[in-house]
């Protein structure tokens, strides 16, 4: 049985285009607005969705996603509500893959077995856990795969050819290539570097390659979608949400539509990339 993620990449391949992966943090800026954004993502052109599980100490993230995490926590978001959000999404959309992304401690605290059972039931398709390298596979990766979830690994510019097989072992769904050395939402890699990196990964794996970190405009997303199977945009979307808050941090009525408008323009860029 193929998973939603495998199915979606199959469809993209058949359509001859790269995909758009959109990241938003669960509960940012509030549960309600976050749900509105999430439900609007598929028809705005998101092919896959990454939902950030907020954490107080997001060590691999830049200022934009740090702030979104803290906004979500401040509005009362927690793991239960994040799974609830997925459940509500899944009730309306059976096709768009959902990947939960974040750090290990909130999962460890929730209990690995309980988390995998609840995430599977809610309709989660995959996991990306930043602080679980292959060296710690027994913690969550192996149990997740056993539970039928895709465990998606991050490969980076520092993952050399000797290490790549280790990183690609026990992974499924797709490979997330972190295109820069650094944190989210800061610098960008050149087109040539990205093309070379995707080529290198393709020599080691048949899995689809999504490229993220530092992609913020329709032009950048298009350039990435030309050489990779998908482009991931996170900080730029989250920044749109931040910009639609009033002086007291309360979301203005256009918070969701403003974020979704950006997604539409990113999607248009990605869809035109190989035309």
């Amino acid at each position, binding site marked *: 049985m193929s998973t939603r993620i495998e199915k979606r990449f199959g469809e993209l391949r058949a359509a001859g285009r790269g995909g758009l992966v959109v990241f938003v943090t669960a509960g940012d800026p509030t549960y309600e607005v976050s749900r509105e954004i999430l439900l609007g993502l598929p028809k705005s052109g998101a092919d896959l969705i990454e939902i950030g599980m907020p954490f107080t100490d997001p060590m691999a993230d830049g200022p934009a996603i*740090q702030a979104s995490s803290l906004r979500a926590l401040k509005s009362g978001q927690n793991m239960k509500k994040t799974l609830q959000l997925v459940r509500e999404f899944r009730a309306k959309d059976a096709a768009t893959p959902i990947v939960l992304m974040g750090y290990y401690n909130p999962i460890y605290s929730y209990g690995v077995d309980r988390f995998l059972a609840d995430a599977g039931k809610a309709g989660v398709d995959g996991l990306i856990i930043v602080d679980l390298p292959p060296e710690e596979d027994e913690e969550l990766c192996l149990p997740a795969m056993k539970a039928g979830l895709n465990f998606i690994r991050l490969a980076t510019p520092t993952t050399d050819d000797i290490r790549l097989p280790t990183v690609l072992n026990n992974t499924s769904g797709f490979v997330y290539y972190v295109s820069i050395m650094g944190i989210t939402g800061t610098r960008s890699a050149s087109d040539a570097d990205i093309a070379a990196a995707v080529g290198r990964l393709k020599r080691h794996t048949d899995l689809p390659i999504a490229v993220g970190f530092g992609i913020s405009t329709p032009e950048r997303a298009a350039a990435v979608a030309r050489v990779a199977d998908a482009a991931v945009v996170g900080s730029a979307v989250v920044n749109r949400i931040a910009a639609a808050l009033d002086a007291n941090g309360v979301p203005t009525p256009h918070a969701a539509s403003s974020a979704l408008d950006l997604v539409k323009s990113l999607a248009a860029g990605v869809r035109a990339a190989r035309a």
Partner: protein
Amino acid sequence: MSTASAAQPNSFRTGPDEHGRFGIFGGRFVAETLMPLILEVEKAYAAAKADPTFADEMEYYRAHYIGRPSPLYFAERLTRELGGAKIYMKRDELNHTGSHKINNCVGQILLARRMGKTRIIAETGAGQHGVATATVCALFNLPCTVYMGATDIARQQPNVFRMKLLGAEVVPVHSGTATLKDAMNEALRDWVANVENTFYIIGTAAGPHPYPTMVRDFQSVIGVETREQILAAEGRLPDTLVACIGGGSNAIGLFHPFLDDREVEIIGVEAGGDGVETGRHAASLTGGRPGVLHGNRTYLLQNDDGQIIDAHSISAGLDYPGIGPEHSWLHEMKRVKYVSATDQEALDAFQMLARIEGIIPALEPAHALGYVRKLAPTRAREQIIIMNLCGRGDKDIFAVAERLGTKL
């Protein structure tokens, strides 16, 4: 899996295992970008440990730059005053830069040089580790960036100026709660972005493997010297060792060489803040539970959702919501007993030692002394207690004056 009910090992000194674990604690919970470098550090450290020239270099700087061995001092007046066990103090506050932190910084910068790294970063809370790192960077002529929470910068101005005098760049961290844990997050973010040329000198016995082991090894000189010194002075081992614990580097340094001497009672003193029962404290073992942060599994202050809770302590050096993984293991194996001392107990001990022994301790070891004050009178006069006086209090006089209502 090791838990409190696990069998006692033959030795407490063989850890960690090949995965960097002490029981279930420790490990390498870091982003993939850092993983190749973490493995390289592990390899380089193993090579350095096997290389006699590395040991010679360490010995040279210990003797001529740090000023080791530090004395083991019999605190005679304090002993009389408390009216119980004999109290000895390991005087690591007499080291160059005023604390035990330099022991580790010398070791790590020598390793960084062996690895060909050309830039050093560090995090700091109270500023002691930042000062020690800035010091060795000046000595070895390497550029140094120290991340420090904006809140800590405000309360530790003298150390901020010291670091700048030593040529370091001090970067204020405003994210999160702007204290030690946020400084560590920011240092990790810098490292991810500059992994090719940069070495991260972590100040405490925590972080991803091999850091907890490496820091312990560099700090174990404290316990090794103490063992020789007490045998020379008393002809026997002490009955009790006491040290304060934030991340726990001075404590593991004193404790480790004694772990297999089962007759020696070992006590770690966490920062109790306003009292563990108030929730405003930094006592990870007493008031926390196991979790994963900053590269390792260990006891953490966290809420029901696994979100990290801010620590609170009068001492910026103990103000951290985690603890080194080896301490978490020793806690569960019940080899070391962990207790806490409050802000007030530390403050009282701070003033007492100044008046009775003419030594102004740092607020961190003042916590250890706060506990010794309660313990010593309950013990017989033939008994021996050794506490680690791991830092001097010059940096704290402003904070203490403010707390006592004195305007400087």
